[in-house]
């Protein structure tokens, strides 16, 4: 069937939440009404990455990219673009006056600065149609590995590519495979960690939703390399769309014989199963994850023995993250040398970041290693809303740390981030501006780890709780002399004493903010003052008598009746009643209210 036009609609979680399914339904209806449903093909895709501008719709052959599409705008697009051939410029992404709108997608800095390997098919193919994946050279790497390479050659190629784990630690993937391959055992396992739990990180979800076959192909390759016939994908149950598409993809691969017995007529057999996680952060830790797959409560155990020696059900197991796997087929097809040309000396390839927080283009970007933070924030991210000042970026989620503005020109790679006291982690990147209080941020992340601690070891279970209590006290204006030193002592002890990665890294947000923003901590503790004006307990709203015109607006809007006065005379805030909601400041037309 030949269509004159393809309409791609993002069906990632973000766009689905902002009515993409309804848009699809309206589009089908509108096409049928115009009698052109046989000329225009609707293609459901994964995430384009520009979630901030969603729902996204791309119309080919023009390549016109429409953003913020709503169900009500569908008819206009159909009538104007698909019937009359006039691009609806008002809805276009990027330069609306550009003459060559056909290429507008590539012309937007958000996309043109990216280099997509792991996300290569996201937003390009229909993830529920295996043929489209195959058209983009899908399963060709598996075919190449099975028919032209020995398992050792596959491992050598991955080793040579210098691919490092994209899930957190950055361990060399090829080396991990080698360890497992060297084990002699009748049964080995290939596992995938799709239990993406970092707040703000969603690249794994995007790959699962937008290109599930790449994971299946890569895991089969890994199975061939280490000598395993069974794989497990551990994915969190909170990702319903990802789970559904993954299951569809597995079924299609089985139907095509790309999973199952004697793949490509060789004697290699491999199959995959999905295991759903109930959403515990600790289950992203490898030993806890495997314990959970085995059907036990997700708790970590000591290492060594490492999973490559004794993993799932005591058998040699490799465990890689979704994004790491997504790189494998491309490396095998294009070669390790090609991959080595991308990135920095010790960090090769690209990394996907989920950028969020105080940034204009919230979304998913894949950039070569070595791109500077400045490029990410200002060129790709479109800068900070309302022209505010960049203060810091948190990378690595609750296990990572922050990079302050002084280091904005640092090239991002594994080693530089470690040097700065942060880490790559899974790639969540939260941008903070001058209005963010760093003590409050540290408290936020620590609250998360306190909640998510599995409770098995005391340093993590009790230590993080004590740290949280101190931070809570500090942000409530009750900080005491010596609190900062106590925090540091606790942090170091937890780092050394905790059983698993979750506990060992839990103090990082505190240590890192202390390293760069110690003055903010001191202001909280010694002067009982929050420099960013975030910690409510230390704030005081007052009316500047000189500026107040006595209009009474603030008094009318105050939800607790804390403001009183006489018309045309300066008003007063009763501090004992004030709940510090800030409404008065918002409504005042004369900037007569200050917050300190």
């Amino acid at each position: 069937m030949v269509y004159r036009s393809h309409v791609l609609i993002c069906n990632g979680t973000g766009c689905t939440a902002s009515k993409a399914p309804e848009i699809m339904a309206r589009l089908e209806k509108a096409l049928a009404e115009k009698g052109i449903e046989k000329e225009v093909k609707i293609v459901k895709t994964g995430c384009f990455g520009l979630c901030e501008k969603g729902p996204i719709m791309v119309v080919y052959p023009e390549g016109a990219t429409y953003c913020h599409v709503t169900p009500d705008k569908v008819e206009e697009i159909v009538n104007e673009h698909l019937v009359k051939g006039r691009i609806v410029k008002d809805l276009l992404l990027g330069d609306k006056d550009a003459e060559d709108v056909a290429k507008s997608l590539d012309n937007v800095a958000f996309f043109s600065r990216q280099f997509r390997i792991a996300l290569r098919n996201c937003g390009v193919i229909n993830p529920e149609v295996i043929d489209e994946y195959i058209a983009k050279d899908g399963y060709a790497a598996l075919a190449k590995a099975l028919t032209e390479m020995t398992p050792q050659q596959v491992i050598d190629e991955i080793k040579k590519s210098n691919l490092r784990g994209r899930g957190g630690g950055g361990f060399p993937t090829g080396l991990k495979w080698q360890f497992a391959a060297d084990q002699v055992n009748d049964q080995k396992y290939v596992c995938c960690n799709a239990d993406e739990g970092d707040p703000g990180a969603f690249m794994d979800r995007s790959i699962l939703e937008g290109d599930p076959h790449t994971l299946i192909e890569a895991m089969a390759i890994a199975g061939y390399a280490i000598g395993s016939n069974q794989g497990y994908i551990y994915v969190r149950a909170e990702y319903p769309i990802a789970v559904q598409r993954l299951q569809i993809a597995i079924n299609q691969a089985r139907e095509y014989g790309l999973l199952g017995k004697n793949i490509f007529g060789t004697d290699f057999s491999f199959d995959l199963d999905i295991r759903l996680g109930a959403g515990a952060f600790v289950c992203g830790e490898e030993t806890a994850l495997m314990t959970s797959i085995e059907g036990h409560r997700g708790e970590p155990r000591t290492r060594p023995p490492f999973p490559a020696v004794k993993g799932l059900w005591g058998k040699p197991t490799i465990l890689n993250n979704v994004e790491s796997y997504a790189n494998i087929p491309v490396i095998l097809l294009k070669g390790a040398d090609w991959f080595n040309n991308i990135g920095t000396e010790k960090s090769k390839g690209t990394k996907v970041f989920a950028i969020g927080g105080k940034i204009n283009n919230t979304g998913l970007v894949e950039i070569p290693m070595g791109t500077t933070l400045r490029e990410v924030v200002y060129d790709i991210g479109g800068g900070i809303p309302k022209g505010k000042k960049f203060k810091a970026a948190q990378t690595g989620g609750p296990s990572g740390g922050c990079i302050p503005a002084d280091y904005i020109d640092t090239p991002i790679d594994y080693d530089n981030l470690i040097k700065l006291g942060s880490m790559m982690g899974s790639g969540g990147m939260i941008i903070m501006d001058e209005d963010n209080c760093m003590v409050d941020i540290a408290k936020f992340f620590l609250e998360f780890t306190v909640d998510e601690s599995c409770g098995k070891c005391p340093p993590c279970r009790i230590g993080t709780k004590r740290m949280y209590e101190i931070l809570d006290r500090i942000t409530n204006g009750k900080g005491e002399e010596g609190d900062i030193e106590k925090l540091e002592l606790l942090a170091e002890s937890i780092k050394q004493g905790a059983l698993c990665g979750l506990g060992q890294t839990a103090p990082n947000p505190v240590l890192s903010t202390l390293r760069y923003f110690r003055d903010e901590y001191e202001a909280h503790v010694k002067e009982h003052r929050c420099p960013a004006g975030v910690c409510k307990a230390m704030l005081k709203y007052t009316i500047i008598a000189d500026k107040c015109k006595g209009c009474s607006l603030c008094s009318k809007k105050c939800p607790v009746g804390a403001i009183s006065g006489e018309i045309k005379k300066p008003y007063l805030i009763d501090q004992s009643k004030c709940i510090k909601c800030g409404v008065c400041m918002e409504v005042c037309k004369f900037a007569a209210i200050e917050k300190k």
Partner: protein
Amino acid sequence: MKSIEELKAIRDKTLKEMSIRDNEDKVRIVVGMATCGIAAGAKPVMSAFIDELNKRNINNVSVSMTGCIGICRLEPVAEVFDSSGEKTTYVKLDAEKARRIVAEHIVNQKVVTEFTVGAAER
């Protein structure tokens, strides 16, 4: 999947269907599909272009629509943009003429002079 040939066959077939989504420099055929064009029969012309290209397995040519370019009396109008950006304007088309344009202009790189706007205006 028992052989690489099978995989290749699926790849080639689907790639052809998806070629419309490639945005590289390629030949574009743009058909005027405003009210005047449609009334004069632009729709069968467009279908003929798509059908003929498909029959001949030509993937590097895109067919898209545009609005009225102002010479309504000469509709249906289609313009062929070569990869170099060179533009040829064909007028008073029908399905048969469209097929000839594919055969002569697209395949053999020879402009069909008798259908161009220059010939019609002479």
